[in-house]
Structure formats: structure tokens, C-alpha cells
């Protein structure tokens, strides 16, 4: 099926040029295009102009600077999976990236695009939330940093203002372990029915985030408080964590799952992800990149 809608296409050479173009009415940035081109076919969007941002140097790169891991917005999920820096400093993101769609999509889809599409089931949302990442937004007046916690406003709705362009993400670095669990209808490619990211630092500081169980990816403060200072949670604590997790989400019933299954499974996933994260923190547990939900059962 063809794309019926007609539009202009410009490949921006500099970030300044990109920002100028994006300030025009109906201008939309094009990165990997794996969401955007599908939406164009469906007639879900009808931009006047696509501004191709793939050539922008500023949006590329994976490096450690000033104690932070910098991930350029144009970094593809395949690059995230393969990056030794991500594997070392943000293994949870690598684990989540491995669950994004399929190889053919991961070779093209970018983390910036995933965060800007901002669907409630986006796979990079929960890991970036537990990493306390900052979104670097380039604007005509300079770079603005938006904390991940304030990024998602609702389904397909973010804190990005018109004319702004996500340049990349900075993630604080520190010793930690984590696990990303994704509930899918089967083992193949699927949008998350629900997802859970758990990160624990050496001192027992826990962070938890959920996807697909609320209008936007969100943190789990109740579970985080419960686990504070705990290094190896016992069964009783895990059961409590599961119950708390179920209480701090707001899942809906849709085509992919009933609300109640989502809720119950978030409990199971929180338990298994915490177990896996704790094991990994202690140098045990499966290597990153496994299907945590399937591997972590005991």
C-alpha cells in the first residue's frame, strides 16, 4: 500500500538548520522512521515536511563524559545492544533494547524516536526512568535538560515543545544491577502487555518503573520505598512488593490484555525482576539480554 499523503522532505545538515526547519508549521523530524512511516501509510499523521535528522552529528554518539553516559538520540537499538559502554554502564537499557521489535526494526529505530513516539508501551521508557536519565532538548535558545520523570505526559504526548529536537540522553553512572521484564503474548516480537524495569545500586537503593500499565511509563515509588536498603529480598518482602506494585499502577483493558491480567502480571514481574536484579548485584543471575520473565521463575 502506498502513502497517499504528499509532503516535502529535507535532509538537515546542521542542528541549526534542523531547528529552523522544524519551527515551520507541519514540520516533523524523521529519524529511523519505523513509527512515522507506518503512521504515514495509515494516514494517522499528515505532516507538511519531514526533516531528516539522521545526518546530525550532535545527535549521534555513545560516550562517557562528566560521569554520565551520553546516548545520542539517533542511536539505534541495535547500536545500544552492541555498545560495550551501554553493556557496562546501562545494561538494563541493553536488556530492554533486545526486546524491541525485531532485528530489522532495531537496525533502524532510534532511542530518540522511541521516547518521542511516547506510546505507553515504549520499551525504552522504564529503563530510562530507573536510570534517572535526562533528555537533552536542543532549541533555538540552547539546550534544555528535562528529567525523564517529567518527560512523558500521556499517550504519545511528551514535554517536548514545538520546534525542539531531542539531541540525546545523559545517564548518571554508578555501580548497579537491574532487570527488565516484558510481558508479551508470545515469545516473538510484540508490544508490551506490561513491562517492569528494576535497578538496584550497591547500597540497596532501588528504583522501579512500569510500562503499558498507565497512560505513560511511570516510576514505582511505593515499591522503591519498601525495598530501600535491602540487598537480598526474601519471599515475604517480594510478596509485599508485588502487592504494592499492583497498587501503584492504573492498567486498562485493551486488545492486548485485560486490566486485571496486566495488574496481576506486574506483581509477578516485579517479583521476578527484583530477584534477578538482586542476584545480578551479587554476581549471580543470568547474563543481561535474557527474557527475564521466562528465565527468572524458580
Amino acid at each position, binding site marked *: 500500500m502506498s502513502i497517499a499523503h504528499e509532503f516535502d*522532505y529535507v535532509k538537515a545538515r546542521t542542528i541549526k538548520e534542523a531547528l529552523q526547519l522544524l519551527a515551520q508549521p507541519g514540520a516533523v523530524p524523521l529519524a529511523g522512521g519505523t513509527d512515522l*512511516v*507506518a503512521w*504515514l*501509510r*495509515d494516514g494517522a499523521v499528515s505532516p507538511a515536511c519531514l526533516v*531528516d535528522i539522521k545526518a546530525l552529528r550532535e545527535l549521534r554518539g555513545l560516550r562517557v563524559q562528566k560521569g554520565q553516559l551520553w546516548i545520542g538520540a539517533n542511536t539505534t537499538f541495535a547500536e545500544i545492544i552492541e555498545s560495550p559502554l551501554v553493556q557496562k554502564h546501562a545494561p538494563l537499557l541493553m536488556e530492554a533494547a533486545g526486546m524491541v521489535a525485531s532485528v530489522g526494526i532495531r*537496525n*533502524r529505530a532510534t532511542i530518540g524516536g522511541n521516547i518521542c513516539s511516547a506510546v505507553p508501551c515504549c520499551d525504552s521508557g522504564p529503563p530510562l526512568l530507573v536510570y534517572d536519565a535526562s533528555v537533552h532538548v536542543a532549541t533555538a535558545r540552547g539546550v534544555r535538560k528535562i528529567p525523564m520523570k517529567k518527560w512523558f505526559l500521556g499517550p504519545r504526548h511528551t514535554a517536548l515543545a514545538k520546534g525542539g529536537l531531542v539531541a540525546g540522553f545523559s545517564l548518571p553512572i554508578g555501580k548497579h544491577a537491574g532487570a527488565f521484564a516484558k510481558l508479551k503474548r508470545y515469545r516473538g*516480537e510484540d508490544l508490551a502487555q506490561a513491562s517492569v524495569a528494576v535497578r538496584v545500586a550497591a547500597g540497596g537503593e532501588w528504583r522501579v518503573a512500569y510500562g503499558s500499565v498507565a497512560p505513560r511509563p511511570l516510576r514505582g515509588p511505593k515499591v522503591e520505598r519498601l525495598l530501600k536498603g535491602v540487598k537480598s529480598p526474601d519471599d515475604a518482602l517480594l510478596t509485599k512488593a508485588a502487592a504494592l506494585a499492583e497498587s501503584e499502577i492504573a492498567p486498562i483493558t485493551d486488545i492486548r490484555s485485560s486490566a486485571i491480567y496486566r495488574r496481576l502480571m506486574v506483581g509477578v514481574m516485579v517479583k521476578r525482576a527484583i530477584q534477578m536484579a538482586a542476584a545480578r548485584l551479587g554476581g549471580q543471575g543470568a547474563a543481561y539480554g535474557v527474557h527475564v520473565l521466562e528465565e527468572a521463575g524458580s
Partner: protein
Amino acid sequence: MKPITFQLNGSARSVWVEPNETLLDVLRGKLGIKTPKEGCGRGDCGACTVLLDGKAVRSCLILAVEVEGQSVTTLEGVGQKGPTALQKAFIENNVFQCGFCAPGVILAASALLAENPKPSEAEVREALAGNLCRCTGYEPIVKTVLAVAKKTARQSTSRRVRS
């Protein structure tokens, strides 16, 4: 209309395209390249897989204007000098049934073996998970890719031993 030039199966090709034409549409409709197939038009099935600078991608989700200056390989390019070892094995083992997914599967498997010559079964399955096949149940595909990888690895080892 915009003119674009890119490498297609090893040769430079130039073509005029509209911004709203996908790479898949242009390959099939304007360049006579018919092996990338349209199975779903939204990146779910992998039948339109091509290699873009060596990486397996969905040509239905890429605008033709985006590939200016890049290199595109389709199944037409893979077998230009006769069937590859992988293709030979796919033929000998009677792997495919209807064959519609075959171009995408062969490209995805070729890209995998180029990057990772000794993949595990799990890696083969993961690499091919985006290429839907409704006929074979995947078993003959996965077995053949693993067998070819094993054979190639053995051959390259024995070459090293000789030299």
C-alpha cells in the same frame, strides 16, 4: 520529484522519486527489483527486508529519498555470481515452501552470518524472528542456517590450519 543516487547490488543507480515513495515501492516499481515483497506494509512481516549498508532493514518503512548515497543489497544482488553456500543449502534441504518469505529470510540470515559466523540456535532464531513464514514452521530454516554456519566455520578453520 527528487533525483537520488545510491548503490544497488554493487552498481550506482539514479532514479527520480517522490518524497512519499518508500524504498520498497521504488525498488519494485521503478528499478525492476522484485525480490523484496510487500507482506504487511508496516514492518511486521519482514518480507520486504533488504540490506542497507549491510544491515537488514524493512524497505517498507524507509523512504526512498533517505537512501541517497547508501548501499542497498537485495536477493538479486546476493546470487549474482551463482548461489551462495547458504542458498545452495536452502535448495538442497528443500527448506522453503511457498517461497514468498524466502528473499527476506535469506537476506536476514546472510546478514547474521556476516556479523556472527558462528551463531547459536538462539541467535539464529532471534535474527530471523522478524521474518514471518506461515508455511515451514521455521525448523528447516533454522537447521539449515546452523548447518551452513558450522560447515563454513569448519572450512575456515581448516584453511587456517593449512596456511
